């Protein structure tokens, strides 16, 4: 029975606001074939596939029905995890650990340009209490931002600074489209879209895909001499109704992180984790999520940012890729965090590579209103 699972390869394509010349099949084939070619893996050697996409985003009930041929699923075992890409990696890992499969290709796609995103997001809310209020991802996040700022008396420009940091850093990332030298003032001057969130603090719908390959420990040796091990994983769901939670914290993320830390044997995340890639759909999450992850005290997210520890040259770089704010669609966003973390561990991040040697990295993904469903993965060089 396999004991451990590793990432043995990955492939990304550039995310854009609209990739009009791509059909969804083109989007997915680019990364699936890219990955298999890179590994030198024949399609018949591919054991099984876990895909990540959403029916509502694709405008297609059974969204993975568009892609069986291009993901190599012809007469193969495939399953779709309709959530975030990080969870798809976790599920792929379990499928291998069960002993039934040796390898698993995990891929995610979204073509958000094709659908009315705020109408789609509104469909997440129950028709009785929340949907009629016109909730979507943005305004539910805005409620959370407001609550968080209020609880810890954090000035709004701290959130804006977090966004400015992300967008500026993203200039070095060829796979995203929002990289631009940005100041806190520019963020605060951008249009207010749902107070307290300004336009530059909010992720943009995008089109993209990415893929990675998992393998058990004996298979890993066959394909690569630099496997990146999945050392820990945790998922947790929060309450559904926004009023049932204290939005100033992310209880689900804390619990997911604890499970992942326990599995990986991490007792002191502030010291033992070398790098963090979290899914910042909204600026304030770059402050709130490190707190929930136990990387600093509750309420001290902005102090952590100010300390320089999270800088690319710092002791615990945070989102050296530029994060989701830099330009990732849903589903792909979480899987991209895992890939960006793995790249840093392997020293393959190019212009984004941090100087510090990265042995343990944390990748976080979420989906749902105000990050209701959370997933934490720990990657390790050994």
């Amino acid at each position, binding site marked *: 029975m396999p004991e451990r699972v590793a990432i043995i390869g990955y492939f990304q394509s550039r995310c854009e606001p609209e990739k009009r010349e791509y059909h969804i*099949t*083109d989007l997915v084939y680019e990364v699936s074939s890219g990955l298999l070619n890179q590994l030198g893996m024949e399609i018949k050697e591919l054991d099984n596939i876990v895909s990540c996409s959403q029916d509502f985003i694709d405008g297609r009930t059974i969204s993975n029905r568009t892609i069986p041929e*291009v993901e190599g699923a012809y007469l193969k075992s495939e399953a779709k995890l309709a959530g975030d890409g990080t969870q798809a990696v976790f599920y792929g890992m379990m499928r291998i650990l069960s002993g039934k499969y040796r390898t698993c290709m995990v891929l995610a796609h979204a073509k958000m340009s094709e*659908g009315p995103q705020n109408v789609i997001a509104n469909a997440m809310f129950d028709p*009785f209490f929340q949907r009629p209020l016109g909730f979507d991802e943005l305004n539910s996040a805005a409620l959370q931002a407001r609550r968080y700022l209020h609880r810890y008396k954090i000035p709004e420009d701290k959130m804006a600074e977090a966004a400015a940091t992300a967008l500026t850093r993203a200039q070095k990332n060829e796979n995203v489209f929002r990289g631009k030298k940005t100041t806190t003032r520019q963020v605060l001057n951008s249009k207010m879209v749902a107070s307290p969130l300004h336009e530059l603090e909010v992720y943009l719908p995008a089109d993209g895909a990415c893929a990675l390959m998992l393998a058990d420990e004996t298979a890993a040796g066959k394909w690569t001499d630099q496997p990146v091990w999945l050392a820990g994983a945790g998922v947790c769901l929060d309450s559904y109704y926004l009023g049932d939670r204290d939005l100033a914290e992310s209880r689900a993320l804390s619990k997911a992180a604890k499970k992942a830390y326990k599995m990986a044997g991490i007792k002191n995340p502030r010291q033992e984790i070398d790098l963090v890639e979290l899914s910042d759909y909204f600026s304030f999450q770059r402050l709130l999520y490190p707190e929930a992850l136990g990387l600093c005290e509750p309420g001290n997210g902005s102090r952590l940012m100010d300390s320089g520890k999270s800088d690319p040259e710092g002791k615990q770089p945070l989102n050296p890729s530029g994060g989701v704010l830099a330009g990732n669609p849903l589903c792909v966003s979480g899987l991209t965090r895992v890939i960006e973390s793995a790249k840093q561990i392997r020293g393959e991040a190019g212009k984004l590579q941090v100087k510090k040697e990265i042995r343990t990295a944390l990748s976080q993904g979420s989906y749902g209103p105000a990050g209701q469903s959370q997933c934490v993965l720990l990657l390790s060089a050994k």
Partner: protein
Amino acid sequence: MTQEPKLLEVSSQANYPYNYSAGRLLSFFFRALRDQQKIYGRKCSKCGKVYIPPRPVCGPCFAETNEWVEVGPKGTLECFTVVYFTFLDPMTGKKRPVPYGYGLIKLDRADTRIQHFLSLNDPRKIRVGMRVEAVFNEEREGKLSDIKWFRPVE
């Protein structure tokens, strides 16, 4: 006599205007329907199967398709039905008019079938195995409906 509690329902309707990108292959296919009244299949670079609808990859081979092959306009009707029940059509928001006939047609030179309307809607007049041909609309827009339907070959 006790009254049953009145059960309420909340109606929620939404309009989801999706714009599906055809991509380069399907754009070629639909332009050919519109401008040339020709139907094209896409051939696998490995096994040579000609696929319709066209697609970038042949699933069984996991290899790219690399050639356009003109198929039809005649073919063999391999499956058919005549629909009698009506239902809400998500394409139009209205009930679909019935009865209508449709089927799976194996166009000449293609290896997979295409699903399309038939000119007939009486099952006694339709047979599996009958030869049919595409009929194009006068006005064409670059959509599958540029082919109006398939009618029996005289």
